[in-house]
């Protein structure tokens, strides 16, 4: 439980640090584009069918 709280705190600290970087720098979107483009590229390797994907989404929304 303590570890979970610490992890959340560290995540939030990173969010604040990155948000301040975005506010003060102009190259943030180049870095963001690298991250997002590679995530989307990887997602194209997924072998999930439409039906599997929708079933997964439905289950995760119920949780």
């Amino acid at each position, binding site marked *: 439980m303590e570890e979970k709280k610490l992890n959340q705190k560290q995540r939030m600290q990173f969010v604040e640090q990155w*948000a301040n970087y975005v506010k003060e720098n102009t190259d943030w979107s180049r870095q963001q584009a690298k991250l*997002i483009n590679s995530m989307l590229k990887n997602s194209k390797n997924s072998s999930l069918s439409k039906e599997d994907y929708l079933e997964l989404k439905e289950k995760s929304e119920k949780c």
Partner: protein
Amino acid sequence: MIELINENTIKLSKEINDLDKFVLDFVNILKKHTNYIIISGFISILFGRSRGTEDVDIIIPKVDKTKWIEINLALLEKFECLNCNDPNEVYSYLSDGLSVRFAKKGEIIPNMELKFAKYDIDHISLNNKIKVLIDNNELFIGPIELQIVYKKKILKSNKDLEDAKHLEIVLKKVISQEKIKYYDELVKELWKKRS
């Protein structure tokens, strides 16, 4: 760079990523046929959050079946509905208050999760939409203050709290504290009514 042009317009300078392109492709078709707003996680991502998403939430006003078929057919130029191919059936889903997902043909991720405006909060968001200008592109999002309040007070997951914090810092000069207070009261009231 993020600049407030007027109360309802924000200018954003950024390198457009593949998720932005996907969203712009979708709304550029949709806007010819109906009003819309993008809500939730994509707003934080648009303004720089360091995360991706597989789905982007979009709300349109409830339309009749004929209008929906016109919209659906226009979207089919570039997109396909993951839920079903028949626009009549898609309309039944939407009319039942469910959302449907559209992705580029032959793909699954990313996708647009589209639903009809249903709750008061959806209508308020549509009526107070914000235009975001990115180079020569534009898209409409729900009011930022309402997004922040909703994420902090209603959704409250770690991801939502992080998204809200990001928006609070990055858009500090744009956010109206008056509107935050207003939406805070409104959301409390509407949520009570809904539950």
